[in-house]
């Protein structure tokens, strides 16, 4: 695939740089498109640009390493991703475990009123852990 977009696959370092730059540039365009759409009141167009950019960037990020012999990502990248993901989940887990029950208890006691943003954040974190649990189960059985 990288051959077809003019990347010199005889130079793996350059191919890797081009790969990351292309992916990051597409995602950056998507985010700018979404923000620009909000600013100029063309939310639908901004959303379409954002979705197209994210899908295209994700597609390239997923497919390119599988369609070329050039090592765009290797075992160290995978370990770094795993460690960063584990750290992120650990922070969310400790934060959630220490904060969410407190919020529920105080709200039940009538001491606080939970804003919808906090409820949304709690649901988002809960959904993330649910997805992680399902993914863990799938990976464990493969």
């Amino acid at each position, binding site marked *: 695939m990288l051959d077809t977009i003019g990347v010199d696959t005889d130079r*793996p370092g350059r191919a*890797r740089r081009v790969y990351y730059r292309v992916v990051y540039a597409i995602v950056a365009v998507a985010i700018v498109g979404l923000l620009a759409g909000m600013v100029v009141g063309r939310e639908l167009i901004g959303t379409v640009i954002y979705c197209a950019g994210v899908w295209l960037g994700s597609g390239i990020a997923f497919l390119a390493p599988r369609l070329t012999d050039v*090592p765009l*990502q*290797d*075992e*160290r990248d995978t370990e770094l991703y795993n460690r960063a993901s584990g750290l992120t989940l650990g922070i969310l887990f400790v934060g959630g475990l220490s904060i969410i029950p407190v919020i529920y208890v105080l709200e039940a006691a009538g001491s606080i009123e939970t804003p919808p943003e906090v409820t949304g954040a709690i649901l988002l974190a809960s959904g993330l852990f649910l997805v992680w649990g399902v993914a863990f189960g799938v990976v464990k059985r493969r």
Partner: protein
Amino acid sequence: MENDLPQRREAAGLSQGELAEAVGVTRQTINAIERDRYDPSLELAFKLAAHFECHVEDIFQPEETDD
């Protein structure tokens, strides 16, 4: 894990990029191994040993502890 990869690579007249290409990883990974910031997988360790025609334990040694 300690290793003498830099010495072996330089003795073979290879750059980090050339060695990385030979064993199918990125230059950054070879750099991280040489600086003891990353322990390679068994697969990569065996590839490196095969490339330098030696045993894995000739390149990689466990770090010495005071125990």
